């Protein structure tokens, strides 16, 4: 057993242990902390299997922003803990669910141990067109070129999720700002919220820019920018914006709107919807990625902020 394999075995065991802790922990807060740790360990696993783009996304979104949302929720739901602990599912349901889960796991384990031979891959097919698109990162090419409609529809999914969260506000708060007004107090949080965002913005823009040739891209860069914004909002240095503000709505739609516009012009100047004209592929892809980053950052930040809880001013 080589050192690498021992490291991988240790990492896999640690991931499983933290996952079991997340399910079994009594207090919701402890479970969420376990979940954030699980997400960061998963990011390491992704690096070990050579999927660095995914590792960045998992660390930023899967563990980072999701963790922020879940921790805030666990803190607010603490009063219900004692009552909810009294609700226990019936023994029959636990046994049935346990059997079902064990069966599914066993089936998947068998499929993992005896995979199909040879392993299919679309890597070669993806590599063929990279030169024509002048893009060095195949994952970016898949997201913005080959399977661009999935990315486009997923933007609409994000917008609808945001509108769904907003729809939970009572009518009188519509158009107002999410969360309660916080005042910045001196302390570690405020210090970090002052120091980190300039650094984070630079890193986010860099991750976006380098995504064309190396791991990175719109999702990862946007998530880092959103994380900085969330930090500033939580520390109270900047108030969350009102959801009816023009600039908020503009930034929300600029990504999908430009993406749609590029898609429709493909009918005229190229091979159809979401097709890139030869020679102009790279600038168009970069332009789409930049606006997508802005939209993703704003959507992720507002999803974390929640529905409006204050009345609209004026």
């Amino acid at each position: 057993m080589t050192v690498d394999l021992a490291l991988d075995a240790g990492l896999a065991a640690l991931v499983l242990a933290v996952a079991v802790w997340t399910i079994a922990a009594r207090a919701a807060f402890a479970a969420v902390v376990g979940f954030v740790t699980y997400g960061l360990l998963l990011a390491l696993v992704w690096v070990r299997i050579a999927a660095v783009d995914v590792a960045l996304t998992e660390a930023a979104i899967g563990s980072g922003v999701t963790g922020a949302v879940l921790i805030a929720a666990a803190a607010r739901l603490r009063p219900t803990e004692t009552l909810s602990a009294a609700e226990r599912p019936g023994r029959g349901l636990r046994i049935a669910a346990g059997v079902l889960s064990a069966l599914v796991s066993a089936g998947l384990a068998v499929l993992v141990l005896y995979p199909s031979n040879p392993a299919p891959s679309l890597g070669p097919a993806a590599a063929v067109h990279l030169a024509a698109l002048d893009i060095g990162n195949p994952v970016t090419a898949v997201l913005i070129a080959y399977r661009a409609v999935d990315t486009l529809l997923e933007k609409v999914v994000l917008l609808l999720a945001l509108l769904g969260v907003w729809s939970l506000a009572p009518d009188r708060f519509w158009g107002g700002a999410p969360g309660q007004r916080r005042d910045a107090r001196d302390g570690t949080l405020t210090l970090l919220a002052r120091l980190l965002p300039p650094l984070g913005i630079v890193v986010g823009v860099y991750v976006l820019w380098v995504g064309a040739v190396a791991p990175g891209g719109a999702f990862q860069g946007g998530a880092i920018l959103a994380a900085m914004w969330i930090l500033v909002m939580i520390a109270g240095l900047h108030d969350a914006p009102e959801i009816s503000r023009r600039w908020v709505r503009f930034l929300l739609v600029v990504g999908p709107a430009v993406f749609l516009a590029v898609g429709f012009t493909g009918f005229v100047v190229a091979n159809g919807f979401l097709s890139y004209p030869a020679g102009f592929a790279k600038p168009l892809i970069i332009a789409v990625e930049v606006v997508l980053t802005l939209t993703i950052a704003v959507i992720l930040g507002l999803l974390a902020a929640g529905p409006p809880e204050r009345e609209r001013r004026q």
Partner: protein
Amino acid sequence: MTAETLYGLCAAALVGLGLFGSIVDPQPARKILSFNLLGGGVFLLFGIIARRGATAGMGADPVPQAMVITGIVVAFSATALAVALVLRLFETTERATLQPDAPPRPSGDGADPDA
């Protein structure tokens, strides 16, 4: 036994754990956590498949990686929507439960905060 197989078995176990937690735990907030574990296991399975599809010049097949990135973003928006629903339910009923006939929380003031 290669690294991919190890992580693949880990993914299979995560799927089972997440499925068990989603069905069994009665609190919606914990169901959301288990759903995220289940999602993580499924994504890791995609990752193993991507790694097995490594070719010259690429450490892993890019198509499953793109699907996982899309999936992570969708899972986050699902979590955000579900958490917002749970919090709103808590604000309206002072409880965060899906049992329709659960007794209200024994607090002094049972008035609807939005009345």
